[in-house]
């Protein structure tokens, strides 16, 4: 049983869409229920399912993504490379991404080795990556052994860690990269435009 009239459904669906569009963070069902004006979670889920169905259609370039009970719109993977350069903000900051890349390449990698390579800030990166479920940690003596997770593979659309190594092996040699990339800085912050990448095969 739903606590709403069928006739409200369209209105509420539109409201949820507007909320998901505007929010810079994924939204919990509780929060969405509050925005709708105190609806039940089952009702929110019904609305989310409808939105999910709607945006699954091929004519849509974005889709509903639900992770850990939180919902957000995201660009469909098929289109992200062609439009990534438009967004100044990434959902993983550059410094954290660099730590993640090192973990993925060495999979597994000890936290101690990561810190040696990336500096003390890597402790924070590990924390963030653990929270996002992109890596997991196992104790090994006095340090941690870091692995990437299935969620990592899903996020990047990879079938295995080896596939990432394969991608890296594929890299054009460094001098060539340098011309595109302004400069490899000691990554203090992810600074908007630097984070974006022009993809020319768009």
């Amino acid at each position, binding site marked *: 049983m739903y606590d709403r009239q069928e006739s409200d459904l369209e209105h509420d669906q539109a409201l949820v869409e507007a909320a998901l*569009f*505007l929010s*810079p963070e994924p939204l919990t069902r509780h929060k969405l229920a509050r925005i709708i004006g105190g609806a039940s979670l089952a009702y929110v889920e019904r609305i989310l399912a409808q939105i999910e169905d709607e945006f699954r259609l091929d004519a849509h370039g974005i889709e509903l993504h639900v992770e850990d009970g939180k919902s957000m719109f*995201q*660009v469909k*993977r098929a289109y*992200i*490379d062609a*439009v*990534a350069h*438009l*967004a100044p*903000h*990434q*959902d*993983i900051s*550059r410094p954290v*991404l*660099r*730590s*993640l*890349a*090192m973990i*993925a*390449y060495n999979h597994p990698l000890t936290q101690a080795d990561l810190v040696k*390579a*990336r*500096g003390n800030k890597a402790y924070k990166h590990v924390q963030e990556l653990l929270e996002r479920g992109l890596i997991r940690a196992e104790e090994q003596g006095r340090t941690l052994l870091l692995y990437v997770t299935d969620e990592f593979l899903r*996020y*990047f*659309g*990879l079938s295995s860690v080896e596939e*990432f190594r394969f*991608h*890296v092996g594929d*890299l054009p040699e*460094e001098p060539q*990269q340098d011309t595109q*990339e302004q400069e*490899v800085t*000691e*990554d203090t912050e992810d600074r908007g435009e630097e984070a974006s*990448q022009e*993809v020319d095969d768009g």
Partner: protein
Amino acid sequence: MDGLTIAEIPITDLLEETWEGILQRLTVDMDPWDIDIVELAHRYRDYVDALRELHFEISGRMVLTCSILLRMQSDDLLASARPTDRSELIDELEGAIEEEAAQWEAPEEPEEFALPLFRRPRRQVTIFDLRRAFTAAMKVSFRRGKRHAQRVEEEEDDLFDDFELGGPDFGQRLHSLFTKIKNLLRGHRVISFFRLLERGDKDERVSYFFEVLHLAAQGEIACQQEEFLGDITIMLPQEALPREALPQE
């Protein structure tokens, strides 16, 4: 602006009020059946003056209210004369307000909208980003390693350049440093390590640090460091410890 008051009422409070509300607030300490018109007129004039001072718009209605109060005030002062018809005054006031409102052209207000709702869209990172991040991380890591190796080398060089531990020069330097410390301590219980420095650069700090440690180890001086990497206070041993705890030498 926040500190300004009229009859002890903050002006910011009065600004929130309608014109009737203002009159009410300004007479709050008066007997409602015996309003002191003279005092009220006075307060209201203060209020209008304050607005003028603060560059606030003084609308026709405020001026009118003020003038009516002043007329009432003069009625009261000239108690013998026939008082002005107050309802006539109110009518006049209302008419003026309407006229003022009719003449005024409202500025455009973006309908409903306060300000555009800006978004901060975030995109997923791609495998390209990850690849690029890896290359960048490797470069930085390599540079970091090189810098580290360089530092170790430099530090080793420094050690051999600056310290000839056990050599005659070092003993001489210790002696002159001890003399310097004793001079600086004259009239003081403790001195800061930094008082010893002349140039203050890293080399000098390291050099003095080792010499100070050496003197402390010999029991010539006592040192205290409250916090890690903080300042070191230097004193003569008798200042630092109870006499019986002093080194024997």
